[in-house]
């Protein structure tokens, strides 16, 4: 089965498989890839001074996939030659396991790095995904950004972090 570039699911992530899928995806440019950048986010054992036991992620899946599509379109608008893949895991995830894998392929490394970094920043800003932290003495929903894909300042901040 071909690996979808944008996906959410409960199974463990494989950044290498995602990178291969991004490389294999149809190229719009006639230049071949010279660079693949990947990012993997791992569940950490500490957060805000608490000892974390595991996380549970949930997503509003159809909107999350649309958000990934939006992020990929934003990246393609800024870096025309880069292609993106974004896989997010949901359900219970243990310490040290991956919650997200992102891969970007491009003829040149600058675009590949920038698109990859931009994608993780935008996922954290606008993807309707939540994590609940189970620590030694309780559990808590983590709440970060107010999701607003139209927020130009947030997008600028993501571009800034992507070094664009």
């Amino acid at each position, binding site marked *: 089965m071909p690996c979808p570039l944008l996906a959410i699911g409960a199974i463990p992530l494989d950044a290498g498989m995602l990178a291969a899928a991004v490389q294999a995806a149809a190229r719009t440019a006639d230049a071949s890839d010279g660079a693949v950048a990947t990012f993997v986010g791992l569940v950490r054992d500490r957060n805000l001074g608490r000892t974390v036991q595991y996380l549970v992620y*949930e997503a509003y899946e159809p909107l999350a996939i649309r958000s990934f599509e939006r992020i990929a379109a934003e990246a393609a608008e800024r870096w025309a030659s880069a292609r993106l893949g974004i896989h997010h895991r949901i359900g219970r995830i243990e310490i040290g396991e991956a919650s997200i894998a992102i891969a970007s392929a491009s003829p040149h490394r600058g675009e590949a790095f920038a698109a990859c970094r931009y994608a993780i920043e935008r996922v954290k800003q606008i993807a309707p995904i939540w994590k609940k932290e189970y620590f030694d003495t309780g559990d808590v929903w983590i709440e970060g950004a107010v*999701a607003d894909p139209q927020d130009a300042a947030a997008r600028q901040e993501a571009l800034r972090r992507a070094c664009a």
Partner: protein
Amino acid sequence: MRVTVRLFARLRDLTGFAELVRELPPGATVRRLWDDLVQEFPAIAPYGGSISAAVNADYARMNAAIQDGDEVAFLPPVSGG
């Protein structure tokens, strides 16, 4: 008109519901639906300034008009990645 309401993460925990069906007058906005929910579940009132909304799985503004049969989702601040 009748709409399906989807609640996620802490909004679901606070209300006890992941999904609800509610009646609204024609032309009601997303904000009207939210205000109704706050009446029904006062514990979610503090989210008034930080929720996002989606209609039929697309982000929508609070002043967007709802149609009969729509699925309206309320989203607390996100923490994916």
